[in-house]
Each structure stands twice: as C-alpha cells, then as structure tokens.
C-alpha cells in the first residue's frame, strides 16, 4: 500500500507540472490581458497601463513568463494578484479553509440524505416511497442553485429572520454562530448533490440486490437487515463513493454561485473574479490548487475502496 501511495504521489508531480503548463498556455492563447481590459474600459490611464505591463512582465515572451512563474513557484512564491496587489498565498490561505468547510459539510449533508433515501428507494422499488424519493431527486437535480439559494435567503433570512444571510460563522462566537452560517449554503449545495447520489445509490443497490451472493445470503436465512447493510450496501457503495469523490473534487474548486449569494469567502469566487479580470497569477495558482485537491481526493477514494471492499489490493 505504501509503495502504491508513493508511486501515486510521484505520478502527481508531472501531472501538476503539465497542468501548470496547460493553464499557462491556455491563458496566453485567450484574448485580452488584465492591463488592456483596464485600459480599454478607462480604469487606468495609458501611463499606468504601461507601468503595469512592465511591472508584471506582460510584455515578455510567454516562455520567459512561464519560466519566471515556475521558478517562483518552486521557491514557494505564489506571486501577487495583478488587480488587488495582495499576496496570493495569503488570499488562498484565507479562503481555502472556508472552501473545504463548505465542501465537506455539503457532501456530508448530501450523503446523510442520499444513502438512506437511495436504500429505501431500492428496497421499496415502485412503491409510493420510491416514487416520492424519485420525484424529490428529480426536483433536487433540476433546481438551479442560484434560485434555491435566493429562495432560502428570502425565507430564512428576510421573512423569518432565523438564519444569518451572509458570511462565515466563527467558533469563537459560539457553536451556533458557526453552524447557523453553514446551514443555508450547505443546504443549497447539498440538495443537488443529494439528489444525484440518491439516484446513484438506488441504481447501485438495485443492481447488487440481484447478485447471486445476496440471494445466497437470503437463502442462508440471514436477516434482511444484515443482508442489506453487510452484504449489499458495502458493494453498492463503490460507484457512490467514486461519484461522491469526484463531486467533492469539484466542490473543493469552489462554488461560485453559492459563495456569491451567501457571501462565503471561498476559492470559487476568487477564481472567477480572477478569470473575469484576467488576473493571470491568481488564475494559475487557483487552477493548481484545484488540481492538487483533485489529485488528493482521487487518491483518498482509491484508498477508501480497500476499506469498503477488502478484495481490492494495490500491492
């Protein structure tokens, strides 16, 4: 296992390097640079634009810029944002914990809803419960997060005034402050995820329940609960965990809409703002962080497989 982990980590290095190169190349193929955008919309004067172009080496060939970026990266210098002039490392350090918190809480919420709902749906196939769960999942998948978020905000924040409508809660202000700020954004993100994972759990359970080993278990006279949770569920979880892992990877890249609606200072908003303003250093670092998160999550999912299904071995 250890060898496998080391190998995977070593493989990740060229993958991440490749990502930095592709991001860099794509950004330089994309029309517009931050200074030209500021200049054309008259946010800076030509004199300032010239100074900024020189300051950020935007007038240098792309390979010079890339070498400089890579050199800084290897020295642990993530650079400075062109538009905010703030240190990117501290911006990321401030936002990443918020993004991780929101991603994990949304995923937790989604799994808490999806797994029981999927099991009930599968074990009560074509019943009223199943149809209700299917309909709810359909609504959950179809509901745009910006709409659901605003709806929750209007109801819980404006009409009932029982939950805060902006920002991150702090444990130093009490547990309720921390949790209450998390509820609405997690719910907004978790509902869609839960719907997706419910459908997947149901389909996976249905497939597993028709397998021979389940039939054998039942024939041996095992209690249904034991058959479901010890034999069927563990096997049915492999595709669910794979999907959940991928979704978690996406969530760790930040959720722009939810972050904006609930004023949640996460990576998504930072990245999108950087893309809109062509803030190249911030885009490069955000993409790299996103890639690192993905690599870690897929590795964790692979490791998790071995706990769920002991037959899976990487040695």
């Amino acid at each position, binding site marked *: 296992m250890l060898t496998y982990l080391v190998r995977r980590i070593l493989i990740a290095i060229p993958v991440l390097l490749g990502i930095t190169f592709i991001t860099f190349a794509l950004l330089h193929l*994309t*029309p*517009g*640079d931050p200074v*030209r*955008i*500021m*200049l*054309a*919309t*008259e*946010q*800076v*004067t*030509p*004199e*300032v*634009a010239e*100074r*900024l172009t020189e*300051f950020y080496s935007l007038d240098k060939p792309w390979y010079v810029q890339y070498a400089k970026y890579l050199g800084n990266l290897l020295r642990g210098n993530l650079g400075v*944002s062109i*538009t*905010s*002039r*703030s*240190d990117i490392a*501290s*911006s990321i350090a*401030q*936002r990443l914990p918020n993004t991780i918190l929101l991603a994990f809480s949304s995923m937790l919420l989604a799994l808490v809803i999806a797994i029981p709902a999927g099991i009930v749906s599968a074990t009560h196939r074509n019943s009223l419960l199943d149809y209700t769960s299917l309909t709810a999942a359909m609504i959950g998948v179809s509901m745009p997060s910006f709409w659901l978020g*605003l709806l929750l*905000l*209007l109801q819980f*924040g*404006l009409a009932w*005034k029982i939950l805060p*409508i*902006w*920002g*991150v809660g702090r444990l130093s202000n009490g547990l309720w402050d921390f949790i209450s700020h998390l509820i609405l954004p997690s719910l907004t993100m978790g509902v869609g995820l839960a719907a997706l994972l419910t459908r997947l759990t149901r389909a996976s359970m249905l497939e597993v329940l028709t397998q021979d080993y389940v039939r054998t278990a039942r024939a041996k006279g095992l209690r249904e609960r034991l058959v479901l949770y010890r034999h069927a569920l563990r096997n049915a979880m492999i595709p669910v965990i794979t999907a959940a892992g991928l979704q978690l990877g996406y969530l760790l890249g930040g959720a722009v809409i939810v*972050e*904006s*609606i*609930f*004023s949640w*200072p996460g990576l998504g*908003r*930072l990245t999108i*703002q950087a893309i*809109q303003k*062509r803030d190249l250093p911030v885009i490069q670092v955000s993409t790299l962080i996103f890639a690192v998160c993905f690599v870690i999550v897929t590795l964790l999912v692979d490791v998790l497989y071995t706990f769920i299904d002991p037959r899976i071995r990487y040695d």
Partner: protein
Amino acid sequence: MKMNRFVSLLAVVLLTLCVAGAGVFAEQVLKISVGDLENVDPMDLGGRNSDVSVASLVCDNLVFLGKDDFLPKPELAISWEAVDDYTWIFHLREGVMFQDGNAVFAEGEARELTADDVVYSIQRAKEVAVYLVLSEIESATALDRYTVEVKTSQPAPFLLDVHHLASVMIIPHEAVEVLGDDLKISPVGSGPFELQTFIPGERAVLTKNEDYWLEPNLDEVQFIVIPDPAASIIALEAGEVDIVAYGPADEGPRLLDAGFSVAGRGGSYRGVGFNVTQPPFDDYRVRRGISLLLDVDSIWPAVIPADFGERAYGQVPPWVPMGYDPEGLMDLDGYDETAGLNLLADAGWTDSDGDGWLDKDGEKLSFEMKCFGGAQVRVFTIIATLLQQVGIEATVLQQEVGVWVDDLLAGNTGMFFDFSYAGTTGLYSMFHSSLITQSNTHFYSNPTVDTLLDEANTTVNYEARSTLWKAAQRLIVKDQAIIPLYFEVVTTYVAPYVKDFVSEWGTLELVSSENNVYIEE
C-alpha cells in the same frame, strides 16, 4: 395598595428613562455592503472602490472632492496656492494626530502629522503606487512644520484630481517600517476611523477616532462583503446592512418606493463609438447619418430608470464640471430620419434594388455592433432594431470582455459600445492621437483636437482649461466619432434612517467639513 401603585409608577418612570436613554446613547453603527475587500494598503489601492473607501476613512488626504461641485476642498491642507505654473504650496492643518492604540503607536503615544509626513507619503507613493499618476511631481519639500512645496516638471492642472496628488493618502513612515506587508490589512493614518478588523473577502470593522479634528457622529463603521447584487438588496431590506454600494440599477424604482434613497455620485459614460478608420465608418456621412437615425431621447430611458442616468451630449460627465457642456453640444444632437437617410444616400447608400436594405456597389450596408454583457446589450438591441427598420442590416455581437477589448484595440471593430468611467482626463485618453491602439479605441486623429488637449493639459487656470477642454469635446462630437447616449450614475442605496451620506468620489467621506453621517433613531 398605595404602595403597589407607587412601585408601578416608579417602574414605569424607570422604564421610560431606560428606553429614552437607550435612544440617546445607542451606538451609531453604519453597515455598508460592498462587492469585495482585498487590500487596503493606502499606497496600493488601484481602482478598487471598496478598498479605497476603507482606506480613506483610516487616512486623510491633502484635499477631498466637494460633494456638489467635485472641486478640491480642504482636508489636511487648509489652503494651497499655485505660486507659478510649476510650484504649489500647501499649508497644513495644525494639531492633527495619528491614530494610537495600534501596532505603530501605543495608546497615548501618537505624534502630530507634519509636513515631513506629507513629503514622505508623496515620495513613497511615487515609488510604489503604480496606479497613481504622479510622474508630473518632480519634488516635494517641507518648507516648515506645516508647509509643503510641491514642484512639478510641467504645468500640472490635474494635480488635485482623483488618481493624482488628491488620491495620495498621508501615512506615518513608522507604519511602513513597523507593519511591512501588514499595511495591507491594518493601515494606520490620521483619519476619522481606526481600523480594528480587516478580513479580505469578508469584512472590515472601524471605530471612531476619538482624537480626530472633527467629531464623527458614527461610533462604528462596518464594511460587509456581499458580492451577489440580489443578496445585498435582501440584506438591505432585512436591515442587515444600511447601505449597498454599487447596487443593481434595476432594483432602484422598487427601493425608492420602499423609502430607500439613492446616493449615487459619479458613474460612467455610455455611448456608441466608431472606429473612424474602418469602412463604412471612415465616412463622416455614414456616422452622422446613423446618428440622425437614432432617437436617443427614447432609447436611453428604455434601458435604465430615469433617476439613475442622465442624457449625454458629450463624453465628459456632470461630475467633471471642467468639461461638462450640454448647452454647448446640444445643437450637434438631433433626430431626423429623413436627413439621416439623405446623408447615407450622399455617401452612396440607397435601396437601389428595392429589397428594403440600403446598398452600395451591390453590397448591403451591414455591420456588427460589438459589446460585452450587461445593460449595453439592451441598448444595442434597441439601436439595431431601429436601424434595421430603415434598411441597415445592423446586428449585435455580444463578446466576452477580453475578446471585446482585443478586437477593439486591434482595430477589428467598426461600431462598439463606448464604455468608460469618464474620469477627469478621459477625453484625452479616449481621443488623443498619440494613444491610438492604447486607450484611443476610436482610432480618432484630429490635429486640432490634439493641440487643444495638449494645451489644456498644461493650463493651470481652471477657466482657460475648461474652455479648451470643451472646445476639444465639441470637435470630437462634431466629427461624430461618438454618439453620446447617457451617463449612468452609480447606484448606492441608502436606508431612510441614514442621514448626511455622500457617496464616494475619489474617497469616501463620512466625516468632513461638508457632511457628518449619522443614524436617525
């Protein structure tokens, strides 16, 4: 029984006193919703309005720009004079103290702000404030404790404008030495409020500077980051914030009905721009003809509520009084469909084959009007529809902003949505021939205009400069390099109980010689 009555009466009296007391002594806290907060280093603010607002409450400038006339008003400098075209003398306010109780100055150990601090701040800004235009300043010298002499390398009429010396915030050198990079999150100055908390992307909390030379009415100011416009309006209506800076204009009429007010000041110019070197717009008659075909008075109110805009006759907006000149430009404006079509016919564009489209040498008068997303798409859709009705095949091409900019600067765009914040020197940036392919996206070149703008740029006398500026603008509009549409005012929504609030222009002034914001109980 009597005893019970007495106790009840006493309770009522005490309760009344408590309630009244609470009304009198309630903390005056102002909460402002902003789009973002990133870095409040007073020397490194760029064009980030929210960061400028926070920093301008912490630090003082030499001057601030008046709420009605946008002209420099005394702040740290109680007076100033241009001794000659190259020399300015600033007389500083005496007894102004830097804030204490922070990492730079311990409680009770702050020192007085003097001419040396002004000189230091100007010199540092020249070195590090890449977003400011200070190259015109040759030297700054402290003549005595309260007098500063600024010498410029050329006559500098815009010295006391936004992005120039007026935007330099005065800080103590100790702040730079002690705080280093932390200056971005905990600046220290001499302003009316002291920064207590600054969390980028989240919030900033400032409390009253008890030693300020004016007595601020507010005890605390909070800036809260709510990036989603709809969410910020919900927060305003829920009473979670008192002011929404740069709110969505669409919400205006509804909020006005609900008792909120709009404190917009400044904004941006909106119009149609032509690349005057690209066919068919290289022909004046085509540009003028199209202008005459557009009923601008009907177009712009269809796009933004009337309270949030103003009809434009030129590029220079009302908040740049030096060049704002509707009376001088109105005669160049006009809606006359027949005259417009006649001009196009003079240029050779007629419906020769009777298919309903104007053509010339077998080619239809057809072009794309390029813009990026936003209200401008609606403006251009209306214009395209109007032009199609008279036989011009105009279509709207909405581009991503980077693509739009690249196309514009490369000269690939004939007709575009002219978008600019229209700062004081905007006319120069947009139309001086030396800036073609940079900020002169019209590729407009007129030696007379260049001469007028060059001369204005070195004319310190306000009236003379104003005359030159207006003359240049008139020529540009007469050449029909643009079709001015409207000025969009910044929409800052204010709760009814917030009084004396003046929206930012260059800096945010909550306490000044012109206003002192307070919350009405």
